[in-house]
């Protein structure tokens, strides 16, 4: 009797094979995400997934959930509208570093500032994979990309520090080597009220790895294992990433703050008194 992988029920198996390269970290990330939603305590009907454009943007299309493949850089504002129309939904954004932090950077910081109750998972592979390996806002200094052929000289974002500064209530970083921890963090992030952020450092052996002579997918995973250090509660100012440098992983921030909708209820109940009709979505 053949045994079916338990994650299959969460995948659109009629869409396999997927488009991702061998050695890519996206399959691992999707696995971690499925483990997270299996254990998060919400029925799958209640979970919506929103992606932008790019290799990671394709995640929404492979997950058997209510899933939205939107425009480049804009999954967060789409998710904001979805969440506000039906606050019972748990809305998760999964997208890449270019999508979320270059073209979509403004939306991320504002969602964090408002403490919109969303989970944002950024699969950070330091490059635009879908378009052939260009420079992103997270490409480390000195790394080669197709649009930084002499080595990157722009300061990259330190995403956990950015997320914390903008107001996120939950901030964690793992690599695709840390599957158990990543799954746990994504689960905690979904359960958290407010803007939660999980960065997954992921190998792109086809483009970023090849150009920077980092070896195949397995070699990049080994490097994640050897070069990473788990420091829960680390000061996010100290966790910026250098080319081939130490990758500090862990849960950095876990704090309580009222979400956008909490503040909305409080403010309107105060102003309108008995005339306020508690907002429960537009159902």
């Amino acid at each position: 009797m053949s045994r079916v992988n338990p994650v299959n029920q969460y995948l659109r198996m009629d869409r396999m094979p997927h488009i991702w390269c061998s050695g890519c970290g996206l399959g691992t990330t999707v696995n971690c995400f499925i483990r997270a939603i299996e254990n998060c305590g919400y029925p799958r009907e209640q979970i919506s997934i929103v992606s932008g454009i790019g290799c990671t943007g394709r995640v929404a299309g492979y997950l058997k959930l209510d899933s939205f493949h939107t425009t480049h850089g804009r999954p967060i504002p789409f998710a904001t509208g979805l969440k506000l129309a039906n606050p019972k939904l748990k809305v998760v954004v999964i997208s890449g570093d270019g999508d979320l932090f270059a073209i979509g950077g403004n939306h991320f910081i504002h969602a964090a500032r408002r403490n919109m109750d969303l989970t944002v998972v950024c699969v950070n592979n330091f490059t635009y994979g879908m378009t052939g390996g260009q420079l992103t806002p997270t490409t480390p200094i000195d790394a080669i990309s197709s649009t930084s052929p002499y080595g990157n000289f722009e300061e990259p974002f330190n995403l956990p520090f950015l997320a914390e500064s903008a107001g996120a209530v939950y901030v964690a970083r793992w690599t695709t080597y840390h599957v158990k921890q990543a799954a746990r963090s994504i689960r905690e992030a979904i359960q958290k009220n407010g803007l939660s952020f999980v960065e997954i450092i992921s190998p792109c052996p086809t483009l970023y790895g090849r150009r920077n002579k980092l070896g195949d997918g397995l070699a990049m995973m080994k490097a994640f294992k050897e070069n990473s250090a788990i420091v829960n509660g680390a000061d996010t100012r100290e966790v910026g990433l250098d080319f081939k440098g130490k990758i500090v992983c862990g849960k950095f921030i876990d704090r309580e703050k009222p979400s956008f909708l909490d503040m909305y209820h409080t403010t309107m109940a105060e102003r309108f008194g008995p005339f306020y009709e508690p907002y429960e979505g537009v159902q």
Partner: protein
Amino acid sequence: MKADPKGVLTGAHFLDGDHACCEGALSAGCRFVAGYPITPSTEVVERIAARFPSVGGMFIQMEDEIASSIAIQGAVWGGAKAMTVTSGPGLSLMMEHVGLAAMLETPCVFVDVQRSGPSTGLPTMPAQGDMMQARWGSHGDYEIIALCPNSPQECYDLTIAAFNLAEEYRVPVMLMMDECVGHMTEKVIIPKAEDIEVTPRRYTTQKPGKYLPYQAGRSEIPLMVKAGDGYLFHVTGLTHDERGYPAMNAEAHDRCVRRLVEKIRNNARRIIRLEETDTADAEVVVVSYGITSRVAGKAIQMARADGLKVGHLRLITAWPFPEKRLRTLASHVKAFVLPELNFGQMFLELQRVIEGKSSCYPVPHAGGTVHEPEAIYQRILYAARHSRLKDKKEVAR
């Protein structure tokens, strides 16, 4: 379906067009608005922000127009009726998401209170320069519906119509106001809720597993679902098949895009609204829309006082364009005159449709103010004097 009385301020009001648009949205059942401040549209969202908390609606001021134009689409897939409000520069930023709404067939409303452009232009002054952008401003091929109110009353009425059309055809509908109509204050009658027709969202009755998000059937318009109802559906801005799954080939693309275009073109007769005055025996017909139609009205009065047979065709729907009706009129009309606050956008469409069967004269204007009635009047006179009824056979040859 009748309007939910909760949002309906029944009675006679003294409102400007922006505020009337807000009330129209409330009457239509809109309960989600995302917007970003921009003159001369801001009063719409200011009133929405004040009105929504007491009627169970949600307004959010987003970080920019790009975010606003996709937040409304998230809200629609979450079950809301939703709109965003802007002016030309903001509409330019929203264009990618007009395309997304067309591709995903997300019913939603974009309100554009037009001001003079290009670029920052004259922010507090009127224009009608966004008409072509409204039609095809996003990349790729698609059709939308655009409505042009010419009074605060119509801002109210056509906002409701915009929501109803959006639901009926699952299409983004553009409400093309202008600074004058938006800031003009007049009497606005808001009917009783039971007298307001509202088109509800058309949800599937099929069970999860059976339902295909883009199976259109004969109506050409597929039925919707919303997130959270257990359908575990997928939608994508990529070319997709009936399952909503990406389909990366020319045949699938033809099927996908052809239907987006045809569902509007094939239903144009049902969608188009226009208002005709004295066109039956007219030698010259003035075609106008929005605020310019009111100035044109004065010019037509002046010409009639001179004994000229002048008719008026006011476009309430700019897109789809009333091609058939204009071609019919061209059989007995010597000339068409089209004044607009741009250098010839709808005029190009008129010329295309008339195919040389009658003369067509533009009355261009850069915007910043409205036409002088005299300018339109002079054009009517010129048209009447210099055009002759063309030999139809000659044209056909």
